[in-house]
Structures are given as C-alpha cells and as structure tokens.
C-alpha cells in the first residue's frame, strides 16, 4: 500500500537532485554521469506508471545517447584528462555515491517484491490491460491511428531540425578529392593506359 508512494518520492527526489547536479557540477564528465542517474530514475517513474516499454526505451536510447554525448564532451570541450586522472581519488566519492544510490534503488525494487508481494498489483495498469495487448502493441495502435496527425507533425519538426543542422553547419570544402563512381566505371583502357616504346639505354 505505502510502498508505491515511497518509490514515487524516491525516484522523483533523486531525479530532481540529479538534474540539479547536471547543471551545477563544474566538471562536464560529472554532469554526464548525473544525467545517467536522472534518466535511470525517470525510467523508474515510468515503470511505476506501468509503461515499461517507455522505461526501457528511455534507458536504451538516452543512456545510449549519453555515451555519444560523453564522446562529444571528450572531443569538443577542452577537458584535460591528465589533470582529471590526477584527481581521480578526489572524484571517487562522487562516483561511488552515484553507484551506491543506484544500488540502493535496485535492492529496494527487488527487495520490495519479496517483502511485500502484493506490491506488484499496486502498479498502475496500462490501458488496455497487458493481457490484451502488450505495451508496444498498444502504443503502435494509438500512434498510427488516433495520434497519426501528431506523429506526422512531429516528423515535420524533426525534418526542420535536420534542415537546420545542415543549413547552419554544412560547408562544401574546395579541393577535396571525392570518389566519382561514374567516372571510374566510365574510364576506358585507352584513357588510362599508355604504351610507350622505350629504347634501351634511354629513359622516357
């Protein structure tokens, strides 16, 4: 009975705290780590709502995207990693703290079902019930019928984002050699090979 609110407040509080740390920590690498924590806890909130598909997508896509983001941080910002490694021990507590919070949450979730098995029934039921359609099927059915207008409009928004990225960043460099398959295939033996008779003792 009481467990669901407790988990809700746990997940929300950790999400908000982690989100605050994302924007307030000095080191971009720490920000990324806190971002991962925020995503995991938001995924927990989705599980509480019975939307396990969205929860898993959040973990797979966002935490996956965070790996890319991490690479960007490494490549684009001037983070001095030698200096970072020197202070490794100094940063260890923060890393350990994040790890411990995640561990406590996992234990609490797994332990909860053992201590109070009826909790599984407390979870909000997705619509329609899972017996009739799985999360994915339910989302698909809504997305392509009732919400087709929103789906298509969202597609247009993404198209504009793509055009924007290309318009603002793409530059055609002069003097770059590119592969031209048409020209390669169209070459004939005559154009490419020249037979030269060389008399002995003379160069070309």
């Amino acid at each position, binding site marked *: 009975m009481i467990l669901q609110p407790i988990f809700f407040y746990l997940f929300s509080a950790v999400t908000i705290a982690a989100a605050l740390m994302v924007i307030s920590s000095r080191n971009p690498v720490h920000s990324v780590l806190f971002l991962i924590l925020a995503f995991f806890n938001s995924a927990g909130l989705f599980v509480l709502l019975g939307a396990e598909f969205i929860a898993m997508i959040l973990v797979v896509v966002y935490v996956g995207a965070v790996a890319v983001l991490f690479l960007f941080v490494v490549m684009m910002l001037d983070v001095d990693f030698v200096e970072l490694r020197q202070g490794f021990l100094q940063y260890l507590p923060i890393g350990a703290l994040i790890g411990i919070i995640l561990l406590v949450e996992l234990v609490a979730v797994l332990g909860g079902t053992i201590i109070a098995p009826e909790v599984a029934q407390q979870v909000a039921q997705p619509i329609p019930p899972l017996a009739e359609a799985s999360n994915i099927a339910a989302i698909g059915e809504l997305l392509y019928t009732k919400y*087709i207008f929103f789906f298509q409009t969202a597609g*247009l928004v993404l198209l504009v984002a793509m055009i924007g990225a290309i*318009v603002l960043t793409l530059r055609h460099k002069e003097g770059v050699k590119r592969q031209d398959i048409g020209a390669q295939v169209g070459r004939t033996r005559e154009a490419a090979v020249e037979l030269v008779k060389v008399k002995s003792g003379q160069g070309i």
Partner: protein
Amino acid sequence: MPEVIMMPTLTPLLAELVLALGALGLLMFGVFAGERSAPTVTGVSIGLLGLAVLLVLFAGGDGTTFNGAFIQDSFARFMKVLTLIASGFAIAMSVGYARLAGFQRFEYPILIVLATLGMLLMISANDLISLYLGLELQSLAIYVLAAIHRDSIRSTEAGLKYFVLGALSSGMLLYGSSLVYGFTGHTNFIEIANVLADGRSTGLVIGLVFVMAGLAFKISAVPFHMWTPDVYEGAPTPVTAFLAAAPKLAAMALTIRVVTEAFAPISMDWQQIVAFVSIASMVLGAFAAIGQRNIKRLMAYSSIGHMGYALVGLAAGTELGVQSVIVYLVIYVPMTLGAFACILSMRRQEHMVEDIESLAGLSRTQPMTAFMLGAIMFSLAGIPPLAGFFAKYYVFLAAIEANLYWLAVIGVVMSVVGAFYYLRIVKLMYFDEAEASFERMPGELKAVLVLSGAFVVAFLVFASPIINAAGTAAASLF
C-alpha cells in the same frame, strides 16, 4: 478481431497538406539542382503560399478532424489567410537582400514555408498536443532563419539567444500543459472547457499561468520580451521583417483560441493575466523605445507595445474584444511590412545602415519613400484618419464596453508617450539636413511600400468589409 479505423477527413487541412508536400518537393528540387535553384524555389514558394490562400478560402471543410485535434472555422480561415499573405510578402521582400548580401540559399524560402505551415497548425490547434507541435515547428524554423547568416556573429548570436530562450518558454508551456492535463484529464480544448465548467482547482490556475507565460513569450509580451530587441537587431533584416509579422499573428490567434475555448469557463482568471501583460507591454513599449538609436531595435520595442494594445481587446474577453484584436492585427501587419520595406532599402555603399539618424533629410533625397514612411509612422502612432488610429479605437472601445476603463485610459496615455519616437522619425526625415542619399530601392520593396502605404492612408475605404469579416471570425469562437 482488428478494429476498423476510419480514415479521418482531410478537407479541413488541404492547405496544410499542400504546404507540407510542396515544401518536401522543393527541398528535393533544391538539393538536386544546387545553389542555382534559389530564385526558382523562391518563386515557387510564393506560389505555394498563394495556392494555400485559395484553398483556405474556397476549399471549405469547416469542422474538426483527427479526433478534434484540428479545427477549421471562420476564425481559423481569416487568420490563416492573413498569415499566409504576411509570409508571402516576407519571402518577396528578401529577394533583393539575398542577392546583394550574398546568401542566396534555397533553404531560406523553404524554411519560411515550413514555419508558415507551423503557424497554420497553431491557428487550427484544438488540442494541447497540436498546439505544442505547431508552435515548435514554427519556432524551430525561425531559430534557423535567425541564424542563417552563419558567418555573421550577430546573426548567429541572435539565433542562439532565440533558441535558448525559446526552449525555456517551450519548457514552461509544456509544464503548464502537463498541469492542465493532470487537473482536467483531457488535452482537447473542448473537453477541458467541459471539465472546467464544473469549477477549477488551484493547481489548474498554476497550469494556466505557465501556459500563458509560454504563449506570451511567442508574442513577445512583457515580461517575456527580453529576447525581442536582440533578436530583431541581430537577425538578417528580411528575417526580422518576417519575424515581426506572421509569427505574431499565429501566436496571437493561438492565444485567443486557448483562452476563449479551453479556458472560457474561468475567464476571470485569465483576464487578470492578459490585462497585466497588456499594461506591462504598453508601458515598456512606449518608454524603452525612446532611447533607441537602431531602427530595428526601435521596431522591436514598437512591436512589444503593439502586442500590448492588441491584448487590451483580448482582456475584455468579449466577442467585440476578439473582433477588435483581429482588426488590430489586420492593420498591424501592413504597417510593419511597410516599415521594414523602408528599413531594407536603407543601403549606402553596399552596406545596410540601421541608425535612425541616417534617415535625416529623406524627404529631399527620396520624397516618395519619405512620404510613405511618414504615413506609416503616423499610423503606428495612432493618428486619425490613418489605419493605426482605428486599430487602437476598436480595442479601447471593446475595453470600455467591458467596463475596463482604467485599461483604456492607460492605453491612451501610453500611445501618447509612444507617439514621441514615431514622430521623431518624421521630424528627422522632414526637418533635418540631408545626409548622402540611399541606394535605389529595389522594385519588390517599392511595391510592398506602396501597397502598405495605400492601405494605411485609405483604410476608411475598406474598413467596413474588414471589420465585418473580423466580426464573423470572432463570432465563430463564441
């Protein structure tokens, strides 16, 4: 057994479909034809917008579709035609600038078409989700447009600033929408109104405030106006001209629909917000513009002030009030486009000049332009018998009929203060010593200037059909 799903009717959104498919087609054409295709794409884009105007006017199909997410009524049709015309003129006004400033990119008109598509979706939005998606489609395209002069630091700064603040406002709007959804259980405007008819909770008012904050950002009303002067100044001038006209129309139309449909039962709550925002915008628009030296910044403060005046009509919350807002917008758009046609023609030695002082003595070097700009400035100040006077007259009348006397009084006082900086431009043009003259005005700017000047001067001639059409449009909301 699989459920049979009916295909939704597409007639109400024919114009939107044409714009979307046309933009996709033009994008393909532009990519394959390369940079040389810019003039063709520009021409076809204006044609597309014209075709959309015809479809909106004559294709019919009033009603809702997609489970009530999209609505077409006479209000939507009126605002859509106005928006499409404003966007079409904005594309036409960019032709000469793009040629001279050397950014002939085919993406530019396509982005304007996509932004316009977003605006049409905003005007027809009848659901919190379609509201947000339309708004985001429009805003995202405009962020890119503001930064399209990517080698200029000012342009990229304007784009970035607009993007960051715009994202913040989207966040507020979404937060407000989630609260409204949470407290009513619906995203559809009609359903929200049905639930609110039985009373409201405090949480819903918080949601309403956040939604209004997000919308106020888009119409650049105080206290969410901070981005306006910087973005207007930094963005390339044709983009500023576009930014000052069409998006304001769409955002205002969206605000009107949200408050008069979704939040109609709690009009007491939103009327306070609108009245506060309106007063703050009028006061800031009048006083902050006085010290400006850059004409684009001046126009930014002027547009903040004008949105304040338009909101006076909305604060009344009556059918007459909405009608007066529509009339105000009809008059605001040509005045703005005309003023920007003049600003775009301020070129000396291959460079744009944006200083107000450089207009000195324009009456001797270019008497015709000076006369037109003078008429537009008098009209922006609200001096009879020009169009701007009637715009203000109708909103103040609506406020008085709704017993909001103090709002009307503040409005009149602020338009007297605001008259100062408009009249200073007239004084500079007619009574100060001439500097070197500007370069010759390109044909398309001349056409826009003459059209808007004629509209402003001869407004009385077409006043009654416009006011009647605005009345029909407003009636469809009540």
